[in-house]
């Protein structure tokens, strides 16, 4: 086994993802199959290869910088419009800090 159900639960917590018991079981099976396939990469010697961190960037580092000019932003009302719960121009969430 490349991955256990305990590890699946740990990773789900890292990903902030609630999984049912059935999902944990199926996930362990699926991820195991995929990770086993992925192991194939170890056949390749890549010790002398530079990782490809950038897909295509044949221009100066500064080419992506734009002029610092004002433009009208979305505005608070528009920005929070899709929020499930909002109020007074803010996104509202459950209590974070207990007093």
């Amino acid at each position, binding site marked *: 086994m490349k*991955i256990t159900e305990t*590890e*699946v639960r740990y*990773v*789900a*917590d*890292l*990903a*902030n*993802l*609630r*999984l*049912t018991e059935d*999902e944990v079981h199926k*996930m362990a099976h*699926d*991820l195991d*199959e*995929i*990770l086993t*396939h*992925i*192991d*194939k*990469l*170890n*056949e*390749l010697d*890549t010790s002398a*290869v*530079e*990782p*490809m*961190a950038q*897909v*295509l960037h*044949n*221009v100066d580092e500064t*080419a*992506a910088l*734009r002029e610092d000019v004002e433009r009208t932003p*979305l505005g608070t009302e*528009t*920005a*929070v*419009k*899709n*929020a*499930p*719960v909002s109020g007074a121009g803010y*996104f509202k*969430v*459950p*209590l*974070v800090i207990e007093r």
Partner: protein
Amino acid sequence: MNISTLTIDEVRRGLRQKQFSATELTKEALRFAEAENPKTNALLTISQDRALAAAERVDKQIAAGEELGPLAGVPIAVKDVILTKDLRTTCASKLLENYIPPYDATAVIRLEQAGGVVVGKANCDEFAMGSSNENSAFGPVRNPVDLERVPGGSSGGSAASVAQGTSVVSLGSDTGGSIRQPASFCGVVGVTPTYGRVSRYGLTAFASSLDHIGPFSRNVRDSATLLQAIAGYDPYDSTSAHAPAADYLAAMDGNIRGLKIGLPKEYFKGLTRETGDLIEKGIDALKKLGATVQEVSLPTTDYAISAYYIICTAEASSNLARYDGVRYTTRTNADSLTGMYRATRGDGFGAECKRRIMLGTYVLSAGYYDAYYLKAQKVRALILKDFTEAFEHVDALVTPVSPFPAFKLGEKLQDPMEMYLSDIYTITGDLAGIPCMSVPCGRTPAGLPVGMQILTKHFDEAGMFRIADAFERSGGVQ
């Protein structure tokens, strides 16, 4: 007017000769879409108001004698991962069922500026993750060629809509084959341009180092016209390329005599006989047009799937972190903030998204980074090197798009690894960031379309279109 077979040239001619107005054409397109869409579920939203407003703008231009844009009056479907202002954009996810974007994607702005008429939002796999369009929270898309079969994915709705006739051209997105594979399955043209050629501003991010926006159409010319309209640098996407786009239509002169085409041998093993036979006929057609053909080798191909599923899931796990119940429409309540995040995401994401978030989180988690992500980035560099070396000897590569034609609904749904392996010939183009496309290459004895893939070097869409267009003009494979 037969809306289901129209091309951009026919729309332009019809408007110019006053056979129909843009409004008449749009009304007919909307009527056809309302009537026919339930058969395939290719469109999730039909955008009456927006379409009619766009058509009215075109009619005013005609009345004023103004020059028309290259897409004037053309009914266009847009994949539902591409944002449209004030028009529901769901990413085919339950999480975003009621999401109304506050802005337009750059590609949408550009196609509307060119006179295009957005008639609907196309169904797809949830957050563009899948190869069959069965991962949509709003039901699968059926292939118009055979309703018992999948249209391919993830841009299955964009491909099916053009094949069915509910749009003339459409926009899709491609991360590992999500444009070319459904184009192949539905018998239409689908193009993945060079990475950075089209701005992704307003494209819901799946795997940012691999995501592309590209066109679908019924002929090569129309994809070239649509790509031309949306291509080019965008200050809102720092990864968009500064390189100017060539004049694609001018490049399509029908002449490929003396062109050197490479056939990568790794792409011709493991495909079904029916697909292989058709691709072979396609290659014969290219030879008849005067192209020379030689075998080449891309030795890292066998490792591409592994590298791809590390990179794309790692990036997806990060990109999808934003769907946490705070900003985007859907929340499952819980006592704590973390509990709310977990419940919202657990309820909202479908099985494939969860699988990819989990795999991506796992490969990025402490202790695994070097073994997985870094290793995959190195393998990705080798895959690019394979292509770069091949293009020192040949002008283009030709391969199958998929090892097999459209499969039946449900056939591969229970086995994610088998589904992933179906992307074997398309993911390499995305990993290398080179332009690649699917052009229809005949039908199997059972009547299923097969696509031929053409790949060229970075920014050489013109060369790719020239080959595809010459092939199409010659009659392709019958």
